[in-house]
């Protein structure tokens, strides 16, 4: 079975896709930091960020509509949290909703807070989606490692990435096996079956872990992952990295 739910579009061909992951991680995280740290009134900066993100997306030959739809998928969750904020009174220190009929008040500062949350999360989520759509997961892990992320973390992430697919396949296989033999039995019986499935999945994963470890030992593993070989930063990366200081400068001057 083929999956690519983690890094959809990351195998597209474009100049952005070919950039070293480190450059992309740095630039997109700078975007997020700048977006998050700016006051909600910095419309100019938000506009520039949005233009930069859309520009990069177009340059990376990504379908814009698809990306925006992905952003919209995340948004409702944030809205549920944020929607209550305007009902908070500005000076009610401990919060306090005024939900009395007829006196539903929306505070001005509350609206600002909502705008603040929405625009920042949109820009942030868009940045992350762009990063993951232009960088494959392995490259992302390697980029983080080269940027100094702890080895144990990147190692765990890479194993999770590799084996999540196999686990998912295994779940599907077991589900199919169950469905072909069960005829919609009682609810209680169903839960029992699910319990067994979880147990089986755990055992299989455990044995898999053992065999993988043996395979690692067989190829000379001695407790530490070998250093991955370094790659150099070329002209493209340097040009792309210029986004970071540029936006830092804009952040300082305009917001």
């Amino acid at each position, binding site marked *: 079975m*083929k*999956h*690519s739910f983690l890094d959809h579009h990351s195998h597209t061909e474009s100049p952005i896709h070919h950039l070293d992951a480190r450059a992309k991680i740095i630039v997109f995280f700078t975007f997020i930091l700048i977006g998050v740290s700016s006051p909600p009134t910095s419309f100019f900066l938000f506009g520039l960020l949005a233009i930069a993100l859309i520009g990069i997306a177009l340059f990376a030959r990504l379908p814009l509509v698809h990306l925006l739809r992905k952003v919209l998928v995340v948004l409702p969750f944030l809205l549920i949290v944020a929607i209550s904020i305007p009902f908070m009174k500005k000076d009610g220190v401990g919060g306090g909703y005024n939900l009395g009929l007829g006196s539903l008040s929306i505070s001005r500062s509350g609206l600002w807070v909502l705008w603040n949350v929405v625009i920042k999360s949109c820009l942030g989520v868009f940045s992350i989606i762009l990063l993951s759509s232009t960088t*494959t*997961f*392995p490259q992302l*892990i*390697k980029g983080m490692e080269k940027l100094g992320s702890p080895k144990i973390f990147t190692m765990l992430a*890479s*194993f999770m*990435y*590799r*084996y999540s*697919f*196999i686990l998912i396949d295994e779940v599907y296989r077991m589900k199919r096996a169950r469905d072909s033999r069960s005829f919609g039995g009682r609810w209680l019986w169903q839960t029992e079956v699910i319990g067994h499935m979880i147990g089986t999945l755990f055992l299989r994963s455990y044995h*898999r872990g053992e*065999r*993988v470890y*043996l*395979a*690692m*030992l*067989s*190829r*000379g*593993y*001695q407790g530490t992952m*070998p*250093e*991955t*070989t*370094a790659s150099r930063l070329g002209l493209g990366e340097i040009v792309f990295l210029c986004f970071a200081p540029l936006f830092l400068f804009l952040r300082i001057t305009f917001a």
Partner: protein
Amino acid sequence: MTPNKVVEISHLSYHYPDGTPALRDIHLEVYQHESIAILGPNGAGKSTLLYHLNGTLMGEGEVIILGIPVEKNNLKEIRRRVGLVFQSPEDQLFCPTVFDDVAFGPLNMGLDEEEVRRRVTKALETMGLRGFEGRSAHHLSEGEKKRVALATVLSMDSEILALDEPTDNLDPAGSRLLIERIRSIPQTKIIVTHHLSVAVDLCERAVLLDEGRKIEDLSMRDLLRGRTLLARFGFDADYAQWMYSRSKG
């Protein structure tokens, strides 16, 4: 000149921790550049025997690889000399990309970057996988996975290759391709299989195991003619006869 003994196994027995006896008093000698097939029914102990070649398992008795006894202190030496390919590529391929997997062995051997790259390129080329470096294992077909799995030990340049059911799970075309590739590898090969045709195509000697015991150790040609032996192991004697006459003429 007498050929070099590369594997010497004597009085090897092994019980799994739960008490299952898997190998009983095995003797086996393999010479340089030989290609031997280990045949036998499921549960005969074929995989268990293979795991003893590089110290993945250590039982009672003696296993000597290229003059070095398989012992705790020698494992590093042993493992760079014996390339073991596990049956399931899902176990063999644990890295995010094909490159990382093929480079894993050489990197652990402490080779420098340029040499690692050279070896990865060469191993992938040998397996017909040029340009696969950046792919992830889960995006590959079963046949490609099997070939990458082999490449992960080829890159270590081991003197001995031990392959556990290399054509298992492959369609006929995939098997064919893999067999061609394996045949082009000059190293000493020890191949576990339960396909007589794979054994005939790749090996000149056969070792038959059953219930942890070595039943026979004979040339492939003798096996193909041994009707009773073939019948005991469930192989089609007529097919064997046909392969025998084909190999003769």
